[in-house]
């Protein structure tokens, strides 16, 4: 009797193991069609919508998104060799500097944005703040304001650039240092979209964010003049005067980021695990009635059509993407 019971237990155990193995194997079979997309935190809401629509059009594909500060995401590809098919950055310069030529060949500029100062009803002095007095309010004692980490996220160094440009534009020498003195390190977060939850829970009064993110998350915001909001390419000559030092590839090394109008870039990573899937998704993202339309609806003005700076770069694009871009610097 005892022997039969032991055998029953053994067969049961083996049965479980077999079932587990079969489940994992079948999961493997369905994994054909994964597309890994690294993208800026500020693209989360539009890309989530694009993912849904694309997956419903192509049921065999699974878009796997990972969001973060664009600098950080690019380093994960270039330094940590994390597998990815597509990289979409809030600053096209990040792709140019970190990914080309070792990890990418081309860089398509597909959208713009501008920086705004976000807040909620709960923020201190919310009733008072406007485009004329925002820099006074940020300097007041007790006001908790922040931005993302300039070393990991373009929105971080862009926020600092806005402050530098404001000092020049409003002719208030020392404004930048005064404001930074009122922004302790604790108010910095690695990814700009994290600031949104701090605003909404009432842990922060003001945060620097992209206009599209403010719109997507129903935040109140102060619109700044074109001269300082990094949103108008015609002001590029003035934007250039802002310079921010950020950490380089190794601790102790530094890179200087120069101000320019906010331009988002996208590329396919060299040796992508799923180039066909990646190409299909890119065709969708960069098409005027596909991804670009979604960006526009969500408060982020796209380039229609998208741009590449030189004819040479255009010829490096896959054929199906070439008809979606124009050459314009």
């Amino acid at each position, binding site marked *: 009797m005892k022997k039969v019971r032991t055998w029953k237990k053994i067969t049961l155990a083996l049965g479980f193991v077999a079932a587990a193995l079969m489940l994992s194997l079948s999961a493997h079979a369905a994994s054909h069609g994964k597309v890994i997309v690294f993208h800026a935190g500020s693209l989360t809401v539009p890309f989530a919508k694009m993912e849904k629509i694309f997956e419903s059009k192509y049921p065999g594909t699974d878009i796997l998104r990972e969001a973060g500060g664009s600098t950080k995401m690019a380093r994960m590809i270039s330094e940590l060799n994390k597998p990815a098919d597509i990289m979409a950055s809030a600053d096209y310069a990040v792709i140019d500097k970190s990914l080309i030529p070792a990890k990418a060949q081309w860089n398509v500029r597909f959208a713009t944005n501008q920086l705004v100062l976000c807040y909620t009803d709960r923020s201190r002095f919310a009733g008072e703040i406007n485009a004329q007095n925002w820099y006074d309010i940020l300097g007041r004692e007790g006001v908790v304001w922040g931005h993302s980490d300039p070393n*990991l996220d373009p929105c971080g160094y862009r926020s600092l650039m806005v402050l530098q440009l404001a000092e020049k534009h409003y002719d208030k020498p020392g404004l930048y240092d005064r404001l930074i003195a009122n922004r302790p390190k*604790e108010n910095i977060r690695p990814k700009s979209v994290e600031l949104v*939850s701090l605003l909404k829970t*009432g*842990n922060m009064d003001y945060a620097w964010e992209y206009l599209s993110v403010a719109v997507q998350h129903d935040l109140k915001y102060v619109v700044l003049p074109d001269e300082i909001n990094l949103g108008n390419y015609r002001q590029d000559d003035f934007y250039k005067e802002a310079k921010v030092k950020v*950490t380089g*590839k190794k601790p102790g090394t530094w890179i200087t980021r120069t101000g320019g109008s906010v331009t988002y870039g996208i590329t396919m990573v060299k040796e992508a695990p799923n180039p066909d899937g990646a190409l299909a998704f890119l065709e969708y993202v960069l098409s005027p009635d596909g991804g670009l339309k979604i960006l526009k609806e969500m408060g982020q003005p796209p380039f229609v059509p998208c741009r590449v700076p030189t004819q040479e770069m255009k010829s490096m694009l896959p054929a199906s993407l070439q008809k979606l871009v124009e050459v314009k610097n």
Partner: protein
Amino acid sequence: MTGARRKKKLDPFRSLTVFSTSVILIFILLPLVEMVLQPSLDSLQETIQDKDVLRAIWLSVYASGLAALISFIFGTPFAFLLARKTFFGKRFVESVVDLPVMIPHPVVGIAILSLAGREHWLGKVMQAVGVRVMGSVTGIVAVLLFVGLPFYINAAKAGFEAIPERLEKVSRSLGASMTGTFLRITFPLAWRSMLAGMIMCTARAISEFGAIVIVAYHPMTAPVMIYERFTAYGMKYSQPVAVWLIFVSLLLFLFLRLVSLPKRARHDSR
């Protein structure tokens, strides 16, 4: 020498024990050894001389120790109650104590952050009084306390349960107060379990990451710094910090465990 030769029989139970012991030890040690041996001695020296790294490790140890201390102060009476009394809903209360263990760590951080913001009445009160949770050591200790409490309470409770209530009753019948009984009878018998509970609580707190990173990115604890360095610079710059954290934690726990060895074991360790 017994004289009689035992038949050499392969005992399946013994083999299974030896096998599972080795597998588990290898499973635990392999990644750790790999990680400890990977950084060069130069990078280890460079890292320990970095002020930011020292600050981060110290913050981890200090905040975890503080959380363990608070667990001890508030958890001891609670654990004693659970060990000695039966009441309606006791099972439910015991499950509540275990809840923090299974809540996903980011959820803990989000919950505490929501409570502390001005959008919540509690947060309004705290901020009016000047208590800052976001980005502060207070917030970090609050999170660590949340995740570490179950470990202390359960260990202390088990320690109290192992002491026969009879001894306490005798003490009371001889005229000692409840407090006197606790300090002179219960505590001397239970302190090792309580210390073991505090060690577990500290260990759990030192390794916490997901909840802390939501509440406070700065000031940086060691796990947050390891993650930040990994994503910003790569493994080469994050592993030395991890090695030093492991080393410091090992020393700390080794010391505490030695202190809590029963006198007999310390003297006849033959």
